[in-house]
């Protein structure tokens, strides 16, 4: 994949927004990779957790917002527990999800779930997926 970086992208308000919503200092990351090493979902991700932080530092907004990874992360907090710099990576990923959800770009279309899909799972699953995937 070809990636263009530029001063303009690095200064994009997106970077500040991610830092604000997550409460994290993105530049604290020194790319040790422990978050991705411990993440149980990496095999399903297109951009790994350590790369998400790097992309966010560089303001690669479009790549992050269309990545599969942000919807694969289930906030299990293993990355947070293992980050030697104390960065809450799960919160950074939540911030990117929130930027999309706040534009009403829902990931889960509840109306498209079949009755069987809804009836099979416990209420705790429906509610938490709606909380994470819809605005």
């Amino acid at each position, binding site marked *: 994949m070809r990636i263009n970086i530029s001063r303009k992208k690095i200064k994009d308000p997106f970077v500040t927004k991610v830092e*604000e*919503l*997550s*409460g994290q200092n993105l530049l604290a990351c020194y790319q040790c990779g422990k978050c991705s090493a411990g993440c*149980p*979902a990496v*095999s*399903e991700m297109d951009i790994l957790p350590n790369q998400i932080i790097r992309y966010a530092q560089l303001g690669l907004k479009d790549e992050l917002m269309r990545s599969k990874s942000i919807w*694969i992360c*289930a*906030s*299990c*907090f*293993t990355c*947070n*527990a293992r980050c030697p710099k104390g960065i*809450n990576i*799960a*919160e950074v990923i*939540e*911030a990117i999800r*929130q930027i999309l959800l706040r534009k009403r770009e829902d990931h*889960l279309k509840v109306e498209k*779930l079949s009755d069987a*899909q809804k009836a*099979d*799972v*416990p*209420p*705790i*699953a*429906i*509610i*938490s*997926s709606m*909380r*994470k*995937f819809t605005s």
Partner: protein
Amino acid sequence: MKISYYPGCTLKNNAKNFEDSALCSLKRLEVEAEELERWNCCGTVFSLATDDLIHHLAPIRNLIRVKEANTNKVMTLCAMCFNTLKRANERVRSDPESLDKINEFMYREEVKYEGDVQVLHLLELLRDEIKFENIAKKVVKPLKKLKIASYYGCLLVRPKEIGLDDVENPTVLENLMTALGAEAIDFPYKTECCASYQTVDKPENVADRTYQILTSAQAQGAELVSLSCPLCAFNLDYRQKETVQKYPEFKNMPILYFTQLMALALGCPEKDLRLDLHYIDPKPILREKGLL
């Protein structure tokens, strides 16, 4: 001993086996669990965005209900409720400004929340107040020769400030199982995420995780898995259907709430175990060990 109890939504339907077995066990341990008179959904997940105060209203409102019950301590069974209630509590305790905003928003509530409720998980009550050695004394049917792997998942142990045991190597469930006379099996995937709510739109991912977690427990010789989260329980139990479809060599394994095993050991009647609410029937292995 008396304690206020917050059940949460899933314990009243899919996880009735969790609630009934816990309440029977508590009776045997001479603890009176008093369900809050009014309660609402906890929100299921803690809102991670710094500015998202509105989603902390649900858990904080429940803590107001605890105050209305004239106490300052509340016990939960569900790992997700525990995490959400406790984390929202810590959030407002460390940020008085957001607590003020939340209180102002809920101006029609008669009680103002002041951050003074303690959120406990049943496991903490058993370990720290009742103590496992006292539970062991009340065991009438020791779970002898039953090889149990304990699965924690995420929200009982993470984040560290909220978790009820070591963040990487918790042992509270194993210690309880040992006190009940069982053989506790350690396994490396005990804190691995089960893929949680992705069970709604990506059941195939849950099947992968179920396969990894359960084959890891089986490799250590476990005969069944005990746990404390209704969503993990659904994923590891009911999603074994999809797991077998994807991995034909996979061998099914019963999944039980730790409270069902405790209730069994403490001599609760079989009707309180609700062993009918499982996808993989746990009765054969329990019969084989002479426990039913």
